[in-house]
């Protein structure tokens, strides 16, 4: 390999005569020998010492590229700056052109970022608070825009994008069914198994039915579904909107007189609001099935007994508590995903950052919202 040949590595031989200093350069002063170039030139400058006149003879130079030319011209310049006259002699025409082309000049160094730890922490904290405030305001305003767009669509039904909504329902709802049902089934099994294991110490293992029934219908079904949907569809939503923004597709919509909120956001959020209650219903049923199965096999509660006990343990309101929460969870996921998607800037890094933020924020907000609902329903004694 030509690149790996070190036989032609750059060399400098020098001779000192009185006040003068003469160096003969040979070999390849090129980028693949960069480390050698730097070392040779360092040695050359050192051996020149306090000479008053320096001549660099380039006639035996084999190859030169921009790196070599830059280092040579920089050295000449530095000699000059120290009051030493330095010249090139015997440069081949093509090397001469290259030396002129690179022509040494000072560059301002890369700006160094100063860091003061305490101030940085304070500044970061402040920034985070301000950003959280902005996020909240942006959330309200995006929600407002969506509601307006939705109302507009309702008033002029011709503008309702039915195909888009059904397509999104397929993506978010239908294609999400298997994984959500599977996870809920497994969680139902685990809750029932743990319930039986702990309750049998008091001889109260029959109450596992109440535990599974109430826990799944009120909390687990909707929570598991929301978290899965945030991870599955919220991220996709942000990535779609974000990459559309990066590629100016959103601007293209806007200049065609189409409202991106109406075209992109409303169908997606609407699909979320429709899909999530259905998914959370399926999730609850799967979890109850899992719980019932474990109660039968592991706890010895036959299915008929399970159903009778379940009927006593829950009422319509238990089921409704879960279902009522679902559309609100969907709205939170949709709004956060939309805000993060629109906030994507030019870089791939920014896209990744916002997709992560969308998932983390929506899962967090889903859980916070669930807490508020718990307080709310407790106050209503529902």
């Amino acid at each position: 390999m030509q690149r790996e040949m070190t036989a032609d590595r750059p060399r400098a031989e020098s001779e000192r005569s009185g006040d003068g200093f003469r160096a003969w350069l040979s070999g390849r002063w090129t980028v693949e020998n960069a480390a050698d170039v730097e070392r040779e030139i360092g040695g050359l400058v050192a051996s020149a010492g306090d000479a008053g006149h320096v001549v660099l003879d380039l006639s035996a130079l084999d190859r030169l590229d921009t790196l070599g030319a830059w280092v040579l011209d920089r050295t000449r310049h530095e000699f000059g700056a120290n009051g030493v006259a330095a010249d090139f002699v015997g440069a081949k025409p093509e090397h001469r052109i290259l030396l002129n082309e690179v022509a040494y000049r000072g560059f301002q160094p890369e700006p160094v970022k100063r860091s003061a730890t305490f101030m940085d922490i304070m500044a970061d904290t402040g920034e985070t608070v301000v950003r959280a405030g902005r996020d909240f305001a942006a959330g309200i305003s995006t929600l407002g825009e969506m509601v307006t767009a939705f109302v507009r669509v309702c008033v002029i039904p011709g503008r309702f994008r039915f195909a888009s909504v059904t397509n999104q329902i397929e993506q978010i709802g239908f294609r999400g069914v298997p994984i959500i049902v599977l996870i809920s089934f497994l969680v139902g099994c685990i809750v029932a198994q743990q319930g039986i294991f702990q309750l049998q110490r008091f001889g109260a293992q029959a109450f596992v039915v109440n535990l599974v029934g109430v826990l799944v219908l009120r909390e687990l079904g909707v929570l598991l579904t929301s978290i899965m949907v945030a991870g599955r569809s919220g991220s996709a939503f942000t990535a779609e909107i974000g990459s559309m923004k990066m590629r100016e597709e959103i601007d293209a919509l806007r200049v065609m007189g189409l409202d991106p909120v109406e075209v992109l956001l409303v169908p997606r959020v609407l699909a979320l609001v429709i899909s999530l209650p259905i998914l959370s219903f399926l999730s609850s049923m799967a979890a109850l099935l899992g719980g019932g199965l474990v109660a039968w096999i592991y706890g010895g509660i036959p299915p008929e007994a399970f159903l009778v006990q379940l009927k006593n343990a829950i009422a319509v309101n238990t089921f409704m508590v879960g279902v009522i929460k679902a559309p609100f969870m969907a709205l939170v996921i949709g709004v956060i995903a939309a805000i993060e998607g629109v906030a994507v800037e030019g870089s791939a890094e920014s896209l990744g950052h916002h997709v992560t933020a969308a998932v983390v924020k929506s899962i967090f907000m889903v859980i916070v919202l669930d807490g508020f609902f718990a307080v709310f329903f407790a106050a209503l004694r529902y």
Partner: protein
Amino acid sequence: MAGERTFGSPGAQPEPIIRVHDLQVGFKDRLVLKGLDLDVYRGEILGFVGPSGQGKSVLTRTILGLIPKRAGTIEVFGQDVDALSVPERRAMEQRWGVLFQQGALFSALTVRQNVQVPMREYLTLSDRLLDELAMLKIEMVGLKPDAADKLPSELSGGMIKRAALARALSLDPEILFLDEPTSGLDPIGAGEFDELIATLQKTLGLTVFMVTHDLDSLYTVCDRVAALGDGHVIARGPIEEMLASDHPWVRSYFHGKRARAVMGTAAA
């Protein structure tokens, strides 16, 4: 000028630096390149033209190893690319630079960092030299020093092209692949870009493989032109030979209204 021009030392036989023989590339059931032959000689600027969608970029990407080929051989620097070991392949990749059509700058890095990526990866350099070299390349391609610390998303189309060229040049490559270097530039910017390529080719002894639609580029900087049609090279040679070609597409390309306008100004 009659016949093939010679490059390098006068009288010497032109040495092919890239040699493509009987190359076939296809996607699914469609064959895009149907046994294409092309030589690129050391030190020349070769302009590669052809109708849109006929596989100009496919050829470039196949030579670069980004698209698998179905048949044929590709030799670069006299080595068959199929016969290379992984380290040899890496070494070869250091000897060419590529300017992608959209620039393909790393969006998370500043221009300076973009230019430094290959240098950091392959060279052992002091920080000072690393910085100076990056700035040198950035200035060589005609960018202002204050562009060095900007992110690609803050640059205009022309600046992206220049920054991407600076990155392509960062390891002082022997071959430069340019995919539509002047598309999206204003005529003055495009003219400057052409001049830049010509200067770099002279000073650094580059071989340039340029996919282009820009007739100005073909007239002003290209030593030879090759035209692609129906999966083959349908005409090749200096621009004068292309003008004399009687292939219908080549005729309409070089004798169309736009071409006549360019020729008129070139002759004036």
